């Protein structure tokens, strides 16, 4: 039993800056500090108009709370280190890449082309090789979704090389 626990807690043997708890602590503190600094640049209400607290006070309080609570969980992790997470597999990174591709294509070319590219990319790299199913997720289903949103909900999608063929 103890062996299993020790293996799960193998994170303890790593230098502190490689440990999960440090990485999480560092990221939260860094982001919170940047946000906290940015709250000092918020406009303030002149004292004569100010009722109650300034607009920056509440977010400042929240950020300080987050920093304090994060410091507590980091301090407690010295006594009880977090278990080491499994490395992320290749499909995870490919899915993230597909999100980036989606953003680039939707911004530069076409919203629905971006959906089709992401769908076929994800489906293929998650292991789908059958042409019909690849066509289903990349063309047939996005088309059904487009028709539904456009005709039934009356939504207008952003212009693009494919969407324009329909609109103009």
């Amino acid at each position, binding site marked *: 039993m103890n062996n299993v626990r020790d293996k799960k807690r193998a994170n303890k043997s790593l230098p502190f800056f490689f440990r999960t708890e440090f990485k999480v602590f560092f990221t939260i503190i860094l982001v919170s500090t940047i946000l906290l600094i940015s709250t000092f640049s918020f406009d303030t209400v002149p004292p004569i108009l100010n009722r*109650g607290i300034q607009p920056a006070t*509440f977010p400042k309080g929240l950020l300080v709370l987050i920093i304090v609570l994060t410091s507590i*969980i980091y301090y*407690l992790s010295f006594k009880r280190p977090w278990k080491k997470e499994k490395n992320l*597999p290749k499909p995870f990174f490919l899915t993230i890449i597909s*999100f980036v591709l989606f953003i680039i294509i939707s911004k530069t070319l076409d919203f629905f082309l971006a959906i089709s590219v992401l769908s076929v990319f994800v489906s293929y790299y*998650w292991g*789908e090789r059958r042409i019909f199913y690849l066509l289903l997720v990349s063309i047939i289903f996005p088309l059904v979704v487009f028709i539904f949103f456009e005709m039934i909900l009356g*939504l207008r999608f952003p212009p693009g090389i494919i969407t324009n063929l329909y609109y103009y």
Partner: protein
Amino acid sequence: MMAPLFSSKLLLVLLFGTLFGLVLGVLPGLGPTTGGALILPFTMTLDPLSAIILLTSIYCAGTYGGAITAVLINTPGTPAAAATCLDGYPLAQKGEAGRALGMATVSSTVGGIFSVIVLVFFAPILANLAYEFGQPEYFALAIFGLTMLASIGDGSPIKNLIAGAFGILISTVGKDFMTSIDRFTYGINELSVGIGFIPVVVGLFAISEMLTQSTLLDQVFKRVALKAVKLPTKDDYKKTWKTILRSSGIGSFIGVLPAEGGTVASLIGYSEAKRFSKNPEEFGKGSVEGIAGAEAANNAATGGAMVPTLALGIPGSATTAVILTGLIIHGVRPGPDLFKEQPEFLYGIFGAMLVANILFFIFGFFGAKIFARITLVPNKILWPMIFAVSVCGTYSLSQSIIDVWIMLFFGVLGFFMRRYGFSVVPVIIGLILGELVEGTLRQSIVIFDGNWLMFLTRPIALTFFILSLIALAFPLIRSKKNKKII
């Protein structure tokens, strides 16, 4: 109560919501919260009552649907069905999948109907009490709701509080509602209206789940064969009726507590069923009492969670946070005035929940075999489709591509939060309650002329603050005992 439902349109909405909820509940990784968030933009084409009936029927049926997957493939379709796996799957492995599902269906229906009765009686009482509430009382109540976040799920209370504070922080993005001063907008015009609820909830639930599924592609589910769902025998009823009633009470009570929900309810319902059982040694090996205890409790939490949602505007669970958003975007403000001004609207919701419980009993009893087949849809086909619906749904609400990017950002963030033990539910509840917390705090300070100690002179507010301290202390003590504070 049922009169508003006697229209073909509402019945159709109810039928669709129940079927859709069952499908969502059956599919691991989806569930009523994600499903509700996905369908929320579509409800804009409906009138407010139809929209809320659709969401509540998804909630009731989705909570039950999780049991089908829990029994047949040992994977809870929804987190609330996790305790059902413990005895549902072992019983199914013994060749009694039909009996396990029959018990789950009956106890879910009884739990659900019991909770609707609780809702009908307690929501108006709570709403009447809320007439006494001023800004300081609402602030204290919202704080109580947020401190309850510490005890949700089986995660760390401190991490839950960090996530809740982060949710409130997101609600501060945009123009300050009292002074119109920009906060965290960094010159981006789209952010001055704030970050919408839909991009955050779809990102945190649907997109982060898509990323989680990308790490589980080698997982193979072993599905137990199901011939037909069988109604419990006389012996089963004799064994379980007390458990079903007890768990229905526990589930309804847990549901009423702000921020708690079906997951907590089912775990407590299960452990109490074991504690009171004459045969506790059978638990974990296919005990029908275990199934009844968990299922009655998680479905009873649905009606319970609607009590604070409708009476106070404080969500009782993650899914009721989605329903609350549905109410708000349809221009319905929950609270005591709703009970006075639109009783027929509320009776429509109560009636719909009652009918949804009966409908999922019928669909579950006769159609569980068909719903179980949905789990055979491979993730490599299902998730790209969910992505397409998520993107279009998110875009449709304010027709802004920025919302889609925000959704993707929260999807990635949600994945890493879950990976490192931060629940995403507190973020949603924090986001929902954020405006209430800040608004009531600032207005209270104006009322008290800057004297914070005046909060302690208000008995109701003081009671909520004491309850908040208890809510904070309880999970910390429990976690310290279980060594799960971080």
